[in-house]
């Protein structure tokens, strides 16, 4: 995929997302600006920047886009899993999930090391709630 083209398209997507919503809010005039005026103006500028980039990418040599879906997916899964498990069961279970899932993104999968890291991070989580007063439910 051409990186310059995707860049422009990304900006246009953001501009459309915010611009369409902003145009449903009251715009008002300059003397009495409504909630939609500023976001709509900014979205239009972002959209123009995106368009310029899309057009510009036609004249530039294309660069390859590297996007590693596996790594992002693993990191996202470990974060969301931590949050859900902490909400349902408690942070100590969440930590187990976080360590063992995020390790999937590494090169080697080492059970013993993961177990040690989990224990260490459990202690740290406990310290966070006991000493620093973070309101995480532990178990």
């Amino acid at each position, binding site marked *: 995929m051409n990186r310059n083209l995707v860049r422009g398209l990304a900006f246009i997507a953001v501009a459309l997302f*915010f611009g369409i*919503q902003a145009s449903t809010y009251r715009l008002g005039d300059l*003397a009495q600006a409504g*909630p939609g005026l500023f*976001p709509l103006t900014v979205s239009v500028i972002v959209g123009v920047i995106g368009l310029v980039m899309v057009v510009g990418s036609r004249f530039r040599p294309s660069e390859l886009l590297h996007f590693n879906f596996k790594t*992002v997916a693993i990191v996202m899964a470990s974060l969301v899993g931590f949050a859900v498990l902490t909400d349902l069961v408690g942070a100590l279970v969440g930590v187990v999930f976080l360590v063992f899932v995020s390790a999937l993104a590494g*090169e080697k999968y080492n059970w013993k090391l993961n177990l040690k*890291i989990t224990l*260490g991070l459990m202690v740290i989580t406990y310290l966070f709630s006991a000493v620093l007063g973070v309101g995480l439910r532990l178990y």
Partner: protein
Amino acid sequence: MEILQNITFGFGHALTWSNLLYCAIGCSIGTFIGILPGLGPLATISLLLPLTYSLPTDAGLIMLAGIYYGAQYGENVSAITMNIPHSSSIVACIDGYAMTRKGKAGLALLTAGLSSFIGGTIATAVIAGLAPSLAQIAFLFSPADYCALILLGFVSVSYVSASGGVLSGMGMALVGALLGSIGTDFGTGVQRFTMGQLSLVDGVTLVSVALGCFGVAEITRSLDQRNTFTPFSGKIDMRLSMPNFRRIMPSALRGSVVGSILGLLPGGGPVISQFGAYAVEKKLSRYRREIGQGAIEGVAGQAAANEAASRTSFIPLLSIGIPENPTMALIMAAFIMKGVQPGPLMMTQHPQTFWGLVASMWIGNCFLLCLNVPLVKQLLSVLRIPFSVLVPASLLFCCIGAFSVHNSMDDIFVMAGFGFLGYAFRCLRLDVPPLMLGFILGPMLEENFRRATTLSHGSFVVFLERPISATIIGLLALLICWKTFRFLRARLRARELAEQEAQC
């Protein structure tokens, strides 16, 4: 004599045991993190921001500031010993690493440490002298003037972070402004872009954005690259001879001046000041021919400038209330969470916070020189921490950090979302720091713009009538014209060159 009085007052506050302790902790954490590749000061400050909630106001701010300027020194260390560049130590890799290869690593580190001390001392004096008088001027600012100043910040940040081009820098800053407008509109109470989510009514939490875009995204990115580093194991000889000292001094002084000035300008800070100082050394130094091959001057000038700029960039935040670079935007968030509004009123409303912070900056300098310079070998062992431990630990800290702001799980989901966005931006080679600044400046711009046009009954003339805003807008126009001219000229030259080559 008022300055002296104020400074003694500040030292009185900074020299309590707890504040000294937090200052030392901040400097050491900053140095540690600066050495580590991957996590920059932005990620570190956002990671530790939530930790400061439970600290008293002054101690928390002193610690955060310590992290920021401590990281400058740490970045120099890993650049000099192992040729690992961070955003603000690209220049240090040239001469610093060349010195290490010549077996003079100790001298290079000592030069960096000493120059940082000199730069920091001068910049701290500049803050103490300049910030109060600038605050007096800031009282005269009307909404229109603030508007112009914020616009200047927008434009200059997109020029400074030029790795992806000016257009993409501007685009990112504006996307940040759009993200900042999520939540309840301040003027009318309308809920904007909340998509019916109750957790977004108060807007997106800044900590979640910062932790996602910098913390999570940088960790993910480093997982991609899979690079491991072996710590530097050569000899470090920290003795300083008189001739070397004589070579350090003039460069460090020049660097401090360059850094102090560049740190003050909007969009400025350590990242551009290193290049400025290096260029000055190449022109003015007596040993300019040696620069590039491991000259003391090449290390001293930029280290002093880095350290000076990281401090003087506090001035616009403390005296006007406008953050000029992304790191300052985060520090501003810390101030606001502590109930201190940075700006002209701060010096009269919270004098102990202001002067304590200024004094702590100089004390932090001494910590860096006395603790972190001799202990550099021990600090370098931080690189022995295996990646497989660093990744889950940092992810856990990110989660706890995001959660602890409102004790809400929703913030972790928001952070994960921004982590994904931040990673995507990095893959597209779009700089994320302008987004951060836009996120803070955007709502400020909207508020001041609406105030200004309401006061002027909807006319734009107000921006050109007021002397301050007219000057700033004039400067902006000049800046844009000059940059466009240079860009077009460079394009033209490149085309001519290509044609000549085609003819040959």
